[in-house]
């Protein structure tokens, strides 16, 4: 059971950051009206506002390089909490930014997951 949760977490993380780095407008497919994002302390709710925030971040190209992914079942039927750390390389910037992010994933019922809770923080040195 534990192994499965780790697989779900890693598969989700791969998919999420691949979309973020290659087709950011498609991230909207991973959120629903009840979804919440806290991005560097700013709270945003719902698909439209989350999508607007992510698409308006002040960089066009970026690459997430993931260092760690930890997952646990969250006690909601099939829910998974995922904790990520890594680096964010912005195009044209010399040094990558370190970040941590947590997701609370809920099954959609069609075999995939959506992001119910999302919190992102840069890790300053």
């Amino acid at each position, binding site marked *: 059971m*534990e192994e499965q949760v780790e697989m779900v977490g890693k598969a989700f993380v791969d998919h999420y950051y691949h979309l973020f780095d290659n087709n950011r407008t498609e991230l909207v497919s991973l959120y629903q009206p009840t979804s*919440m994002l*806290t991005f560097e*302390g700013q*709270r945003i709710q719902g698909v439209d506002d989350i999508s607007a925030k992510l698409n308006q971040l002040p960089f066009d190209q970026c690459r997430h390089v993931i260092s*760690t992914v*930890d997952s*646990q*079942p*969250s*006690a*909601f039927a099939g*829910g998974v*909490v995922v*904790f990520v*750390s890594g680096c964010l390389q912005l195009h044209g910037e010399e040094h990558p930014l*370190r970040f*941590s992010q*947590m997701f*609370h994933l*809920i099954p959609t019922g069609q075999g995939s997951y959506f992001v*119910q*809770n999302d*919190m992102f*923080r840069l*890790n300053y*040195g």
Partner: protein
Amino acid sequence: MDSDAVAKAFVEHYYSTFDANRAALANLYQDASMLTFEGHKIMGSQNIVAKLTALPFHQCQHLITTVDSQPSGPAGGMLVFVSGNLQLSGEQHPLRFSQMFHLMPTPQGSFYVLNDIFRLNYA
């Protein structure tokens, strides 16, 4: 629900307990609780407290930089995302860390930690 106020109160209580009397953390976990500590998975209050009290330092101080929180769903749970520094007694440089908690309400009106994930942030 002002989850931020509750989250900050919990975080202060958790880390002051950790720093003063690590064994007392047992009150904040239950049998179903899960901790992943630097990738090492531990289940249940007894095993979790055993792990935390066996960490290779006697004295430490957590200095919290950021606390973010969100309600986790209809059961009244709360997700808390923390970053900060961990100063170990005798060490020159503090360690940077991030930690997430998933808190669930108890019938007595407080919270226990259902999910706990801790990672050091290396430069």
